[in-house]
């Protein structure tokens, strides 16, 4: 009987558990994020300067290696990617630096790809002129304007820019326009100056730098970079934090981008309803050479200036950025309790050598989420439950002692009754 009852209870518990298990994941799952609707755009920027005729890539000239790589890449461009090609130094063979530094041309416009036309256009290229990387980047950024999709620029060159503007600054300027353009750079058998310049350009826009020594490597890397344009990451919304909380922009849950200069603090505001938990994560990226030793601070502060919670992270050495995150669960309350305005402060303690430009500021990425607030636990341990052989021993001992006491009591009562019965 008892066992059967217990079994029934047990199976009921099991069903409950199964129900709970089936229900929980659906309620816990995050919403599917909206994917960017637009078409991804990629532009390949190829250096056609005179030095590209050097024959040092697998016994071929750099130019022919690049041409073969382009043929392979054009064959494997993913569906739905708009691809264009721009050249630099393809037309002016002369010695006039002024003219040579303007020599950049769109070889194939960004749009739906006609592979034969694009290949034919690439085939005509002959190593000719200067290496005006900066102007080419500016023009390419212009080519990619418009649309909602991701933008990616792949720069392939074998020499550094010898024209006036530092292409690294140009790249940072482009990045600060907030059009979400990533520049990946590839150096063909680069020297130190070229490598430094190209890695600086990549760093400034969150791209990557690759040294190319073999044709196969060039092909596979460019393919990989073009494929990356189809990644469906959420595009952050540009916002601008204020110097004080009162003037700060009010943010809804989402992903935001901003810029803040060295050692600056920026404020944002978020409304948190009772029963909601605010989750904020901030990343300050190091998009240029910074001094070793840096940090990021993220604080949540009430309207009246009381600090609720903070997180800070610091580090030394090479890095792409530092991030910090906070949670602020607001307890459940009666209906009609107004939302609390929480101020978020993002500070950084980056510093840079004097030679590095401090404007535009460092890229800041802020992710804001609002989820259900957890209930306050009543005990440190899981539902106040115990675990381990000590617990079992204690419970058994307690049971034993209680059993002995009741046993003795009943024995004593029995004896007294027996005795009284006998005496009667």
């Amino acid at each position, binding site marked *: 009987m008892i066992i059967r009852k*217990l079994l029934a209870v047990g199976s009921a518990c*099991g069903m409950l558990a199964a129900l*709970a*298990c089936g229900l929980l*994941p659906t309620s816990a799952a*995050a919403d599917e*994020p909206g994917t960017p609707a637009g078409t991804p755009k990629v532009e390949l920027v190829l250096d056609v300067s005179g030095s590209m005729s050097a024959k040092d890539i697998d016994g071929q000239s750099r130019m022919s290696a690049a041409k073969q790589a382009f043929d392979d890449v054009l064959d494997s461009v993913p569906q739905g990617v708009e691809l264009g090609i721009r050249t630099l130094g393809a037309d002016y063979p002369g010695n006039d630096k002024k003219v040579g530094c303007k020599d950049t041309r769109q070889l194939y416009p960004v749009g739906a790809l006609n592979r034969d036309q694009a290949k034919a256009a690439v085939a005509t290229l002959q190593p000719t002129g200067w290496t005006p990387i900066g102007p080419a980047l500016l023009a390419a950024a212009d080519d990619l304007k418009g649309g909602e999709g991701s933008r990616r620029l792949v720069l392939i060159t074998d020499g550094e820019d010898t024209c006036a503007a530092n292409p690294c600054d140009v790249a940072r300027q482009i990045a600060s326009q907030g059009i979400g353009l990533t520049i990946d750079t590839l150096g063909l058998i680069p020297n*130190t100056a070229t*490598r*430094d310049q190209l*890695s600086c350009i990549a760093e400034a826009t969150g791209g*990557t*730098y*690759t040294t190319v020594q073999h044709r196969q490597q060039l092909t596979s890397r460019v393919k990989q970079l073009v*494929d*990356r344009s189809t990644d469906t990451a*959420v595009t952050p919304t540009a916002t601008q934090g204020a110097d004080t909380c009162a003037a700060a922009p009010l943010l809804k849950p*989402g992903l935001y981008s901003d810029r803040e200069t060295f050692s600056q603090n920026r404020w944002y505001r978020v409304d948190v309803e009772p029963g909601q938990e605010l*989750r904020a*994560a*901030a*990343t300050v*990226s190091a998009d240029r050479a910074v001094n070793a030793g840096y940090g990021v601070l993220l604080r949540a502060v009430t309207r009246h200036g009381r600090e609720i919670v903070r*997180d800070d*992270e610091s580090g030394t*050495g*090479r890095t792409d950025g530092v991030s*910090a*995150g*906070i*949670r*602020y669960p607001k307890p459940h309350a009666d209906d009609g309790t107004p939302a609390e305005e929480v101020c978020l402060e993002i500070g950084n303690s980056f510093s840079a050598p004097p030679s590095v430009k401090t404007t535009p500021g460092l890229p800041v*990425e802020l*992710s804001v989420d609002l989820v259900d607030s957890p*209930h306050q*636990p009543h*005990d440190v*341990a*899981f*539902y106040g*439950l115990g*675990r381990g052989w000590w617990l*079992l021993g*204690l*419970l*058994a001992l*307690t*049971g*034993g002692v*209680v*059993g*002995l006491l*009741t*046993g003795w009591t*009943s*024995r004593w*009562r*029995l004896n007294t*009754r027996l005795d009284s019965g*006998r005496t009667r």
Partner: protein
Amino acid sequence: MRTARLLGAAALLAAAALGALTPAALADDTATAVPTDSPTPTASAGDDAPPTEAGTDFRTATVVQQGVQATASASAGDYLYWQFPADTGQNVTVHATVTFPSTATRHGPSTWQVDVYDGLRRRQPCRYGVQTATAGTGTASLQLACHLRTIRSYAEPWSDDPLRGTYYVRLTVLDLPSTDLGQPIQAAVKATSEGTAGRQAVDGSVAPVVTANGPRVAPSGGWAGTWWSPRWLWTAGGGVLAVAAALGAHRLARGPASGRGAPFRPAPDGYDAYGERPRRPHGEGRPPGDYGD
């Protein structure tokens, strides 16, 4: 008779509870932290082929399930990001491998590091494991590992204890000769976990720390419920043990039931066996003075 049956049942229950407890604890220790009847997040190789690309920041981090080896070809100097889900009660270890192809000439030693961040992008310390290692020019590959603290279901907002949710892995080179920047490398990352059998089970449950501003990250079978912990078995088993001990001790202390009273006097008022009486808990039904008169 009833006492005997009760005792038998109690002993059976205790045995069953303990029997259930031990294998559950063992199973938790070897494979996953989740109970056997709920989905296991580690066995997930099913739906997709392992990823062969890595992201370049938190936003684009490639999603990979635990137990799946994600690979990527990259350039030295790239920051490679992956993200994986980790559930309550797991002891997670992140393994990373950097392989240097023989075609590229290296000019000096390079130092590599794997960092793990939680869903709020807070850097998580490694309890142990070679998080940073240096590869000489002749080294063909480098192994890195980071063993995280146990994932909990609840933590105070002021602590950075690891909560269930997304975990980001960042693999990068910390230091290398500038001539080697941009050289091709192969990277591989795998996260594995083992259970804790409820050793670290805390009360309360925070919603999984997964941002809505990114891809959906969840164990392949969904997040495990937070109602379960082997602590239920331990506590219930302890209760059964206490009952069994109480009944046994009671019987022992009261003395043999039928061996004592019978020789003295037959029960009056039609009580067929006097010894029947003490088996009933005292203070029940009849008032004490009700019998024997």
